[in-house]
């Protein structure tokens, strides 16, 4: 392990939202964990546990009520160029074609896109398996393809960190499995630090190096688990006894709490 600061560090992070009626909701409470360089970290928890808030804190879109959020040792005070986001929905812009959506970050940030940028975007479309679709309109693509475009867009500025907010949760089960393997392939070709929010246990186990299991609201770390599965992972991984054991372990932990 390197002695440098971790890619992402959350220290005692608390987040309280004031509601319109004057009451307050505690979304996160004393949440702490680190994500190492090029580590694939899954964050797993029930809905409403503040997973998405967690992602927005690291992205610099919201700021913690207490505690500290750091990226590469620096406190996050605004969105950074080296952090890419993939949202739950593809969030593509229908007024641009596929290529226009992938180059959008540059157009939006600097006001112009040149031929070199377009070439880079095409390389990324090739990476996500959509080389032939550059000039298609958004509504000509399936949900899975749209999310691939969103991944290509998130990679355009070549971020070191990729934040993914349940990116496959809106897809059907088959597409979802396919996208998981696609993501692993992309990640092996372009190593990044990935923070992957999900509420799917198998998805978390299949993808991640480590899994942060969160408690229901207010969200805090229940435990952090190592995933002892070799890479590269494939369909065979899904029937690996270690896969099943870990998935069962997490499931039982999540359910015993509810029973108690």
């Amino acid at each position, binding site marked *: 392990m390197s002695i440098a600061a971790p890619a992402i560090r959350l220290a005692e992070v608390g987040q309280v939202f004031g509601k319109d009626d004057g009451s307050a909701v505690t979304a996160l409470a004393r949440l702490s964990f680190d994500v190492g360089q090029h580590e694939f970290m899954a964050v797993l928890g029930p809905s409403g546990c503040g997973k998405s808030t967690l992602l*927005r804190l690291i*992205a*610099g*879109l919201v700021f913690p009520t207490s505690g500290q959020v750091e990226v590469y040792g620096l406190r996050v005070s*605004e*969105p950074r160029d080296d*952090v890419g*986001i993939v*949202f*739950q*929905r593809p*969030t593509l*812009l*229908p*007024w641009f074609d596929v290529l226009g959506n992938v180059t*959008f*970050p540059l*157009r*939006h*940030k600097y*006001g112009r896109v040149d031929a070199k940028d377009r070439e880079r975007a095409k390389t990324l479309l090739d990476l996500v398996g959509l080389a032939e679709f550059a000039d298609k*309109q*958004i*509504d000509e693509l399936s949900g899975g393809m749209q999310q691939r475009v969103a991944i290509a867009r998130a990679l355009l500025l070549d971020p070191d960190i990729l934040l993914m907010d349940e990116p496959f949760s809106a897809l059907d089960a088959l597409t979802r499995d396919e996208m998981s393997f696609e993501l692993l392939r992309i990640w092996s070709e372009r190593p990044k630090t990935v923070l992957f929010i999900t509420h799917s246990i198998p998805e978390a186990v299949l993808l991640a190096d480590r899994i942060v299991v969160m408690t229901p609201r207010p969200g805090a770390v229940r435990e952090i688990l190592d995933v002892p599965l070799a890479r590269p992972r494939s369909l065979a991984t899904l029937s690996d006894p270690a896969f099943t054991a870990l998935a069962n372990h997490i499931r039982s932990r999540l359910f015993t709490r509810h029973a108690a």
Partner: protein
Amino acid sequence: MRPSPKIRAVPTDAPPPVSATAEVTPRVEASAPVRPARPGRLVRLANRFAPTLTFIFVLAIWEVGCRLFQVPTFLLPPPSVIVRGAFEQSASIWAGHVWATVRVALMGYVVAIAISIPMAIALASSRALSRTLYPLIVVVHSMPIVAVAPIIVVTLGASDLPRVVITFLIAFFPIVVTTTTGLLATPEEMIELSRSLRAGRAREMLHIRLPFALPYIFSALKIATTLSVVGAVVAEFVAAERGLGYFIQFSTSFFKINQGFAALVILVTISLAFFQLISLVQRVFAPWSLPKSER
């Protein structure tokens, strides 16, 4: 049934429902209407010509009814007499009236767009502005335009100016309200995408909110076409020496009802053409903003 007190307790600061804007239907995402199986050829032919046939049928009933019951033509002329009425005036006279009305309608329309869209951007950008400006807009819109028109004519004098102002007053409201709605309906994730790139509020408006609002804006622009023709005609009723509104008033005061009807037919044609023009602009320049079935 008496309305329950709960229903009566509608918040008063909400804008009143407006029939003009009630027609605005934002684009539904991705769900194209389910088409039934391809119908037979006869049915398709009937579907295609149904509007024309209905139209011809109504005209025929009108013509036959007028002749059968011998309705005096100064009360209700049959279509044939209206057509004759159209030819009682020369083409150049018609052209003069048409141009006068179209000019005012177009100027009012353009002014309405030029003022309403920046106003919508301001309303959507600032809560304080929307609190102060919005009630004012609603009050202005609530004034019956026919009642205000004579006052405006007196205040602004006899020129195109009062007519353009009257047209503006009737056409601007749906554009402001609907555009503001569209700007504020932009999905939160799109805004977060913009913020994550630190592009600034101006680019957020230009690259994200405004394009997102385009389907709303085009709906409003279509509604405003008809309204701006209404505005021009109302203005001509009050003070004009030219224009189709003026012509209708003039011809009916001499009981030339058939000529009045002819002018009305021309007005309807202008409104329809205007509406179609905006639809065409949308289809050519922003086809994505139309539902898939209409592209």
